[in-house]
């Protein structure tokens, strides 16, 4: 038998190979983190609104007609890449495509269909009722229009093309929301579609259904949840904790607004270091609540405030339902520990923690229910109501505006294809270890230049793909793009799919690298398909692409450059 302790210790100290996809995302996020910050967007929005005011003298309707441009200049960007000046030439106006529900009107104004990018421009107007329904959307970054939601948790992960639903990774979709006035917003929904989604079609229909207007802030806004709940039941007061001051929920919430409750607790010399950690993590990771969501948290808090006769109650957070269940049950069964609870009521707790089916949930709760007193049952029901309010989609859905209607939009690449050129390239191969990189295709459309690359790794094994200790391991692959004068060009790059050809001839394609780390293979061929997009610049005759490998040491190794003709 192996010495498992030694195995774990040895493996735990070994260098970890972060897969390319994850590594790339970390690097991308670190490089672009400012663009995701509230300040960045606020600055941007202020700039845009100011521009609108100056150029269009406050006329929103005139702005709309320009299709995402001000004075012919694009105000949209795609992961930091501006569209070219010719973007507005290819805008296709759409008429009479509006959906109105509960005071919200979403109107599709125009589309742009490029040989890759698709942009839908919407006007969104919200009347007082709709704004009230959505709650606080002062920060426009919280406003999201969700399309083709199939999960019950609003997102924009999908697109429906000719009736077929495709999952679109986050590197291929982008939604930009701009506030025009207190009641008017611009929504730009953008996708990058490849032949894998379009199947080579130039004319196709995109359906946008299951549309909802969502205030993402509500997802985190426990204060609003509590306020809403309080309207229905004063009993919420009993569910909140407060240190013997007899404060009501409203008073506590008022304290929240200026952080005084938080500071009061933070400055309490009786608070232990370990509770500081809990408080810190709970407070900040959830944005705006002092909350304790686990038994340990509750116990720690109780211990610290014992002398003040603290009345503990739950402020539950959006998290795994079984964790909430643990908290609730543990709290109302004072005589039982959480471990005993698992043993007695969840005979196979590990499987429950992976997947709590409705049946298992019902069985467990039913068993507990039989042993509970009437009073406890009533309390449990009350708390479960609260949980359901907090619990993700179901809770938030009450605040979403679910639009009654769909958009079916016929799109055609034909117009832009007339002005699009596929530029023939001379054969060039850049090699690194057992990998060969080739340019597949260079497409120059009036608004973007798309470079498709194929990287083929021969004699690939699961070790050489995933483990840095393998001599054939290839680190993070990326690309620098330069103009003719050596200036670095902003670009967006992503991996579309991987194809693995096994030694028995079986071919497996996948659009994410799910599973590859858990599998063993050898003598295979792995093919990676990558895209690089840059803004089309008609003044450029060529660009230089320099592939690089980021080695596990963190060093960047530049590979041979590839000269790409763009005319």
């Amino acid at each position, binding site marked *: *038998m*192996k010495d*498992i302790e030694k*195995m*774990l210790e*040895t*493996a*735990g*100290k*070994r260098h*970890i190979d*972060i897969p390319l*996809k994850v590594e790339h995302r*970390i690097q991308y*996020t*670190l490089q672009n*983190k400012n663009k*995701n*910050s509230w300040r960045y967007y606020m600055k941007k929005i202020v700039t845009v609104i100011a521009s609108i005011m100056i150029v269009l003298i406050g006329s929103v309707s005139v702005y709309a007609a320009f299709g995402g441009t001000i004075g012919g200049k694009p105000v949209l960007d795609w992961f930091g890449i501006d569209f070219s000046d010719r973007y507005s030439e290819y805008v296709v106006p759409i008429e009479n495509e509006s959906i109105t529900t509960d005071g919200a009107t979403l109107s599709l104004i125009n589309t742009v269909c490029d040989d890759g990018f698709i942009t839908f421009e919407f006007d969104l107007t919200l009347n007082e009722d709709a704004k009230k329904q959505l709650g606080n959307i002062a920060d426009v970054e919280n406003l999201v229009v969700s399309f083709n939601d199939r*999960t019950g*948790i609003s997102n924009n992960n999908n697109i429906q093309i000719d009736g077929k639903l495709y999952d679109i*990774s*986050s590197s291929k979709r982008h939604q930009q929301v701009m506030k025009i006035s207190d009641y008017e917003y611009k929504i730009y929904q953008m996708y990058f579609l490849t032949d894998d989604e379009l199947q080579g079609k130039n004319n196709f229909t995109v359906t946008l259904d299951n549309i909802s207007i969502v205030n993402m802030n509500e997802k985190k806004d426990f204060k609003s949840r509590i306020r809403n709940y309080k309207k229905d039941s004063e009993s919420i007061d009993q569910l909140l904790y407060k240190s013997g001051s007899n404060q009501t929920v409203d008073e506590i919430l008022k304290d929240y607004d200026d952080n005084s409750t938080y500071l009061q607790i933070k400055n309490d010399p009786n608070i232990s270091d370990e509770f*500081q*950690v809990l408080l*810190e*993590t*709970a407070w*900040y*990771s*959830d944005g705006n609540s002092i909350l304790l*969501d*686990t*038994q*340990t*948290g509750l116990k720690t808090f109780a211990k610290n405030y014992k002398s003040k006769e603290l009345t503990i109650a739950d402020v539950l957070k*959006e*998290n795994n*339902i079984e964790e909430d269940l643990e908290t609730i049950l543990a709290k109302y069964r004072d005589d039982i520990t*959480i*471990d005993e609870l698992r043993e007695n009521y969840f005979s196979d707790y*590990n*499987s429950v*923690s992976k*997947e709590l089916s409705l049946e298992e949930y019902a069985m467990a709760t039913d068993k507990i229910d039989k042993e509970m007193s009437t009073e406890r049952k009533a309390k449990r029901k009350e708390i479960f109501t609260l949980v359901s309010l907090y619990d*993700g989609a179901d809770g938030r859905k009450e605040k979403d505006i679910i639009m009654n209607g769909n958009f079916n939009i016929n799109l055609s690449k034909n117009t832009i294809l007339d002005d699009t050129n596929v530029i023939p390239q001379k054969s060039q191969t850049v090699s690194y270890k057992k990998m060969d990189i080739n340019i597949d295709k260079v497409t120059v459309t009036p608004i973007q230049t798309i470079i498709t690359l194929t990287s083929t790794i021969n004699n690939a094994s699961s070790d050489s793909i*995933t483990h840095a200790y393998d001599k054939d391991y290839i680190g993070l692959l990326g690309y620098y793009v330069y103009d003719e004068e050596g200036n670095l060009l902003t670009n967006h790059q992503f991996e579309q799919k991987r194809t693995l050809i*096994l030694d028995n001839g*079986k071919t*497996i*394609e996948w659009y994410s*690298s*799910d*599973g*590859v*780390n858990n*599998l*063993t*293979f050898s003598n295979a061929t792995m093919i990676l398909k990558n895209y690089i997009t840059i803004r089309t610049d008609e003044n450029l005759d060529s660009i230089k692409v320099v592939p690089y490998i980021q080695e596990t040491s*963190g060093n960047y190794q530049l590979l041979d450059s590839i000269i790409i003709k763009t005319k």
Partner: protein
Amino acid sequence: MEELVKRAKKEDENAFNELILTMKEELYLIAKSKLYSEDDIADAMQETILQCFKNLHRLKDNKFFKTWVIRILINECNKIHKKKRKYSISFEDKEFEKYIKVEENYDETIGFDVLIRNLDSEEKLILTLYYCSGYTTKEISKILKKNEGTIRSKISRSKDKLKKQYEGD
């Protein structure tokens, strides 16, 4: 690390980047213990970095930076995991299982994530924090807000499972 946090709070982006890059392997392993898909792991890590960057000024005590980041990451993983429950297993995963045998043999160069891959999510997370991050059981109990006894018993149970798995090698 505290000096870096201090600098990062003063909007020194290089310091912030260095902090994240220093922790990236640890964060990856923690995310991997909770999530299966690399896309999901990338999403969780991206959101964690952004949350940290956005809220760093609100971190009161610099010495808790690492714990703070890990808690945020675990929360993000939980959110993604919850969403993904609604999906069935993907076609690609099943196809892989058909064609490729999962290796059970141990060799000395095996990665930590591969070594523990057959454990459940919570066990993986606890072992990762214990063996890779070097946290004590007490510290893990604080991070995961669970009793220290529970953590100890989880580690012991996990090792028993691994012994059975690799028995006879």
